[in-house]
């Protein structure tokens, strides 16, 4: 089985290649068969691999497919490394990816560029698998850039609208900022270790650097830069809400479940470096805390269903960063997995709603869908419960509660982080149920035109089941002490050290978290269902409206970047519209042209002038030879 590891990323690549080459000539029925089928076989292979991995107890599988290149001591291979951490990611990518492909088969059925969509999606799955399976950082970077490219292609999928192309470019350019930082980190790592093999770096780093060494902090911070760009964290978060211009399955797969969590993967993969750089790790924690609050408050004010989900994604990844920052590695990965389930579910549900209502994105024009679309409603409700961390019954509660608890009780946790996370959880449940109440309750405002069929409902149901039972594989210590997930990840990621003094009162914090989540839901219920006049009261207050506008614009980050980076750049490029450097080259060209016209004028076609030229030449030569 482990000899077939290479097939897992190779199959989606094969699918993408087939679709790119023959997509337009294939019958339409075959396109989703190839597109979803290749990912489906990968998912089956992954599950078989996972079963074998669990049963034979191997620490990792390695497979070198071939040597990529070998230059000046750098010889990365196309080689894969699969361990417990990788397996979690592969499972989510292939399995959730497969469900989303199935969903897309129906969702995109009427689109003219059916095969282009599946080709890009397959290419994305391949690149994402390469990213998580790479055994060296060069191959990881290849996958990293590959997912960036596919993200660009899919955000701008409906490229005929100007705004979509703009959003695609914005995403591409902003993530490029982070990627550049990451490239610098790679250069530094190669300079210090002479290799970019991940496992070699992880074993050598503690011997080379002491804890808190400046180089380690620098490398870790640069890696954080890459992770922040890809995972849409502060200060590079502005691209993700605009990325919602892509089709809903794309948002589900790329901008919720997998690609945006690449930063989480990177940090947890290189965790040794972060343990050597406590400063960088603290930065990660505070970035996470700040992001989850800012994104949470922004989500509170959005009208666009998908933008709410986008900001909630940013906010949830903020939780993962917070967990990584306090050293709760397995909690972060656990939340990643659960988040992938329920956020993919929410996006697919949102896609079904949007499709049903003539591509209407505004929540306030929806409503009353509870009875019309029961399957979508119930699955969406389950996903929302998970997002809002409804106690006991939802998977999100277990994963988020773990982060909250470790944010306080972990060895690097602090009260500030705990309060931020708690406030974030409160806001999360408000905006989540605001979204649910506005969309599915109340009166019907838009006529439903298209009911989702089997291929759209089935993935919703499967994801909803996972969003419920996924949480039970990791239960709190004082609550059955069932830590399957942590045990599973233990060989790869160290278990966090917990402040023993607090463990006795863990149950207090759990109750606080549960109360906060339920209180959020109640407030949402109060404002948007029970007493809509309360919203009116808020809207009458000038201060509240100012805050609303501020939050609605995403805390003004877009305007800030526009003023600080875009406008000066545009101004400078306007100044240099005629390209000062280019003058030199046009000058050369003009000089050559001038010389040409000069010499062309000597070609009169008159025999006598040529003869005169010969004479003058002879005269010159003879005169010069006489003078010398």
């Amino acid at each position: 089985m482990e000899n077939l590891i290479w097939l897992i990323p190779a199959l989606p690549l094969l699918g993408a290649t087939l679709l790119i080459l023959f997509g337009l000539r294939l019958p339409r029925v075959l396109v989703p068969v190839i597109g979803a089928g290749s990912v489906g076989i990968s998912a089956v292979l992954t599950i078989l691999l996972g079963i074998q991995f669990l049963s034979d107890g191997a620490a990792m599988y390695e497979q070198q497919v071939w040597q990529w290149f070998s230059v000046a001591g750098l010889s990365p291979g196309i080689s894969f490394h699969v361990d417990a951490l990788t397996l979690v990611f592969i499972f989510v990518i292939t399995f959730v990816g497969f469900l989303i492909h199935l969903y897309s088969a129906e969702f995109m059925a009427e689109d003219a560029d059916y095969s282009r969509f599946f080709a890009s999606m397959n290419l994305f799955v391949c690149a994402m698998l390469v990213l998580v399976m790479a055994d060296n950082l060069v191959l990881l970077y290849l996958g990293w850039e590959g997912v960036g490219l596919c993200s660009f292609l899919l955000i701008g999928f409906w490229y005929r609208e100007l705004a979509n192309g703009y959003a695609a470019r914005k995403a591409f350019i902003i993530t490029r900022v982070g990627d550049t930082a990451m490239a610098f980190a790679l250069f530094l790592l190669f300079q210090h270790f002479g290799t970019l093999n991940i496992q070699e770096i992880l074993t050598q780093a503690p011997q080379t650097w002491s804890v808190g060494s400046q180089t380690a902090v620098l490398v870790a911070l640069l890696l954080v830069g890459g992770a922040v760009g890809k995972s849409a964290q502060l200060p590079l978060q502005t691209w993700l809400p605009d990325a919602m211009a892509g089709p809903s399955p794309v948002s589900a797969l790329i901008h919720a479940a997998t690609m945006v969590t690449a930063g989480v993967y990177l940090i947890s993969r290189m965790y040794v470096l972060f343990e050597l750089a406590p400063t960088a790790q603290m930065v990660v924690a505070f970035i996470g805390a700040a992001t989850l609050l800012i994104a949470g408050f922004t989500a509170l004010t959005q009208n666009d269903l998908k933008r709410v989900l986008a900001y909630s994604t940013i906010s949830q990844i903020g939780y993962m960063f917070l967990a990584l920052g306090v050293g709760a590695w397995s909690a972060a990965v656990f939340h990643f997995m659960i988040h992938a389930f329920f956020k993919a579910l929410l996006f697919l549900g949102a896609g079904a709603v949007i499709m049903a209502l003539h591509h209407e994105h505004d929540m306030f024009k929806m409503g009353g869908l509870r009875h019309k679309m029961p399957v979508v409603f119930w699955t969406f409700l389950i996903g929302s419960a998970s997002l809002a961390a409804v106690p006991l019954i939802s998977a999100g509660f277990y994963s988020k509660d773990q982060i909250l608890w470790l944010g306080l009780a972990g060895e690097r946790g602090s009260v500030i982080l705990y309060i931020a996370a708690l406030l974030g959880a409160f806001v999360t449940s408000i905006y989540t149920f605001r979204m649910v109440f506005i969309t599915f309750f109340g009166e019907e405002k838009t006529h439903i035109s298209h009911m989702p069929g089997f291929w759209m409902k089935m993935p919703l149901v499967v994801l909803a089941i996972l969003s419920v039972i996924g949480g039970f594989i990791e239960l709190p210590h004082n609550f059955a002490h069932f830590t399957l997930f942590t045990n599973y990840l233990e060989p790869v990621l160290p278990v966090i050290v917990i402040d023993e003094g607090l463990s006795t009162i863990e149950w207090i914090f759990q109750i606080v978290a549960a109360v906060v989540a339920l209180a959020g839901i109640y407030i949402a219920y109060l404002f948007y269902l029970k007493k809509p006049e309360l919203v009116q009261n808020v809207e009458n207050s000038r201060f509240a409206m100012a805050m609303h506008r501020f939050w609605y614009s995403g805390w003004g980050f877009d305007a800030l970047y526009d003023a600080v980076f875009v406008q000066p750049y545009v101004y400078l490029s306007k100044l240099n519209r005629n390209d000062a450097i280019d003058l030199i080259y046009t000058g050369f060209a003009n000089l050559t042209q001038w010389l040409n016209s000069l010499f062309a004028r000597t070609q009169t076609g008159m025999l006598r002038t040529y003869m005169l030229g010969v004479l003058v030449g002879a005269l010159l030569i003879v005169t010069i030879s006489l003078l010398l």
Partner: protein
Amino acid sequence: MNGVTLEAGLLLAAILFILGLISVLIRRNIIFMLISVEIMLNAAGLAFIVAGMHWAQPDGQVMFIFILTMAAAEVSVGLALILQLYHQLKTLDSDAASRMKG
């Protein structure tokens, strides 16, 4: 054998050459230009012969024979070209044949 000096011979060749050159430069009639070229070639041959005599070597005369051959070939091809040119342009004006100007 006789008192003709090298300088005198070369001087004669130079004068004839320059006369031919002046004629090439001032004439527009293309046949006249051809005649002038013949004068120049002849002058060059004269210079060779004078030099060959000076060192009492046959090489100068050999060169003259080569020049003679070349002049014969040149005149035959040149006259054929002049015929064609006249046929096309109906004139012997060398300035009229200026289609290849830059």
